[in-house]
């Protein structure tokens, strides 16, 4: 789920899950059922102890006293420490009341401006806006599509602080409850997405399109850098991803 409920998988965060890439050997996986698990490398140092940024549950905010919704919490930036897991210091969902479309537009513009030459006077002013805009503690929705599923979904990237929680949420989103797992071919071991190659073991990988329009494998760069350049996500077949990887890396 996107938005406030994206933290549904928070409870699984402490497990080192061996997420497995399953195979799909048909061109229309939806017919055979599809069980998707995304492979994540848990060997990367920086991401092991990541925290999910709690987008504030509405129910918890209702019991919050006015002071906890004071300036401090409302202006909380994206950065979180371990202490800030308490829901009351989280973001306020749906505030300020600005349409998602407009919010996303602002975030995208902030990212574009971040890439521009910061030397001109105008750019300076605009960079101030950019800094503020990127500190927005509101949602940042990007599209997620998966090969074989006609309509994409949206996911709030600001509800996550690391790749693992992102992958958990995507799993929840695209994992079908009544899977026919007859075609599942499991790889029992972990691999980093970088290393997934078509060695006869096919599967799915998570990729993203960056600001330049290139498709990259998710997980290569530090999370903040990823957030700053991601435009949309795509869960694609490994075979296609390799082609892209070869081009970009």
């Amino acid at each position: 789920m996107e938005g406030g409920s994206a933290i549904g998988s928070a409870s699984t965060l402490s497990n080192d899950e061996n997420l497995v890439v399953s195979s799909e050997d048909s061109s229309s996986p939806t017919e055979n059922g599809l069980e998707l698990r995304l492979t994540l490398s848990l060997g990367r140092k920086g991401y092991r102890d990541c925290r999910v940024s709690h987008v504030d549950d509405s129910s918890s905010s209702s019991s919050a006293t006015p002071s906890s919704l004071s300036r401090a919490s409302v202006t909380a930036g994206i950065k979180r420490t371990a202490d800030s897991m308490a829901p009351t210091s989280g973001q306020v969902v749906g505030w300020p009341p600005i349409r998602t479309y407009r919010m996303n537009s602002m975030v995208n513009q902030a990212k574009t401006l971040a890439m521009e030459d910061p030397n001109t006077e105008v750019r300076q002013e605009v960079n101030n806006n950019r800094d503020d805009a990127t500190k927005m503690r509101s949602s940042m929705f990007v599209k997620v599509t998966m090969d074989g599923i006609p309509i994409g979904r949206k996911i709030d990237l600001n509800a996550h602080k690391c790749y693992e929680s992102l992958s958990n949420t995507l799993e929840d989103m695209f994992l079908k409850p009544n899977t026919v797992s007859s075609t599942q071919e499991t790889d029992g071991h972990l691999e980093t997405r970088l290393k997934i190659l078509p060695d006869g073991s096919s599967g799915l990988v998570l990729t993203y399109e960056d600001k330049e329009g290139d498709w990259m494998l998710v997980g290569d760069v530090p999370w903040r850098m990823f957030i700053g350049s991601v435009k949309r996500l795509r869960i694609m077949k490994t075979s296609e991803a390799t082609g892209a990887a070869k081009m970009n890396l």
Partner: protein
Amino acid sequence: MNYFPDEVIEHVFDFVTSHRDRNSISLVCKSWFKIERYSRQNVFIGNCYATSPERLLRRFPCFKSLTLKGKPHFADFNLVPHGWGGFVQPWIEALARSRVGLEELRLKRMVVTDESLELLSRSFVNFKSLVLVSCEGFSTDGLASIAANCRHLQDLDLQENDIDDHRGQWLSCFPETSTTLVTLNFACLEGETNLVALERLVARSPNLRSLKLNRTVPLEALARLMACAPQIVELGVGSYEDEQDSESCLRLQAAIRKCTSLRSLSGFLEAAPHCLSAFQPVCHNLTSLNLSYAAEINGSHLIRLIEHCKKLQRLWILDSIGDKGLEVVASTCKELQELRVFPTDLHGGGNAAVTEDGLVAISAGCPKLHSILYFCQQMTNEALITVAKNCPNFIRFRLCILEPHKPDHVTSQPLDEGFGAIVQACKNLKRLSVSGLLTDQVFLYIGMFATQLEMLSIAFAGDTDKGMLYVLNGCKKMRKLEIRDSPFGDAALLADVNKYETMRSLWMSSCEVTLGGCKRLAQKAPWLNVEIINENDNNRMEEENGYEGRQKVDKLYLYRTVVGTRVDAPPFVWIL
């Protein structure tokens, strides 16, 4: 008793177009009811779950235009989870099966699929106009079917929808023989379009009045498009990057000068700051200007343009214009009726771009102002009282102070008196959004004075149930009440159950209402759908039976309906 034959009465009814007036007419007598229902052309359904397609067709067999709204307003801010509802498919299926000659479909906050669009495009020979606002669930493939199959299409108007862009050739799907386009708005699409197909389409559409491009249409394409369509009245500029190619700029300026009918400018989704100057030749005729997406254009450029827009009636702008910029607006735009100022900096620190001073300046300078949406970081009672005195004509007044619970920044008092002044002075106020630190007192004022109020949005306000009760008891014309993060509970909810029959809907999230209270309400009012949206732990409420009465409800959405419980609710929605 009728002294005229039916045809004459029907002819008279033709002059009555507002659906509310027609609803009133139909209540006069059986004969008028019958004449009215056969002659109604435009049907408006404000809540798609309040009735059903079957009932629509039974009552109005001859309509041509249908407006449907789905999700509640707070869905715009992500408070309604994905999959809640608002599906248009059953409506289109039912209409397709019937013999309705549908010509226009206007949807807001509904889930539309490619399948729906395909069915729509094939089922109604005379279909002319599709307007989708804040909808989702479809892709450019659906647009392709509309383009390909609707031979007489005049309007394709896509406003702020969430569309899966397959970067395909949907624009090429308009047949070469299609020359009827009047409105083409695809500003919300993210992907590249076929520019050649677009140009050809525009060139063969002599009736095209409104063209709104998306961000991937570059400057030189814009120049060519405007040269093909000098008759354009509304233009949404897509991308206007800092072009080194001066030839494109010159061509654009030449094209703009020929667009003597241009009255509305919008877009500038990716805009370099200097680009506005190219539009100066048309400024003096502009009545509508939307620069609220142009984050890269700073205040001084905005001001330089607005100084020439003396006929402006509608202005949507970012707060980067500043108080000084608003003063320029106030002294220049004497015809201004609607103003929206959106924030660029959401987290309340740093540049205080617009303050209460800007609002006061506008109210003092623009005598025709009747609608305002104003985002700011600070406000005072004194300013609001002044605004109320200057502008007693407000119909819509929406003030959003970014920080919840923020008091008057000079006196540290709640803003009760300020909003009180607004509702007391503005006797025609129909829509109000309040913010900042507010006690029950403001609701006492609203209940007392806001006699025409139809829509009220409350967030982080009030102290006790009394606040909500003042509103429910006082505002006789209330139709939509939406409340979040305010301490109103069961006592207020249950005080006057019959009130909800006079309203379209009530939304309460993160308030103090309990499951027990909602159940009691549902029992007392079987003509209401009482929906609990509970995303978090679906089973939790069922298990704790002993405590369920006191279990706080996350989100409550209730609405009157004549067709009972809806059958398409997802598992996380409980209909009591």
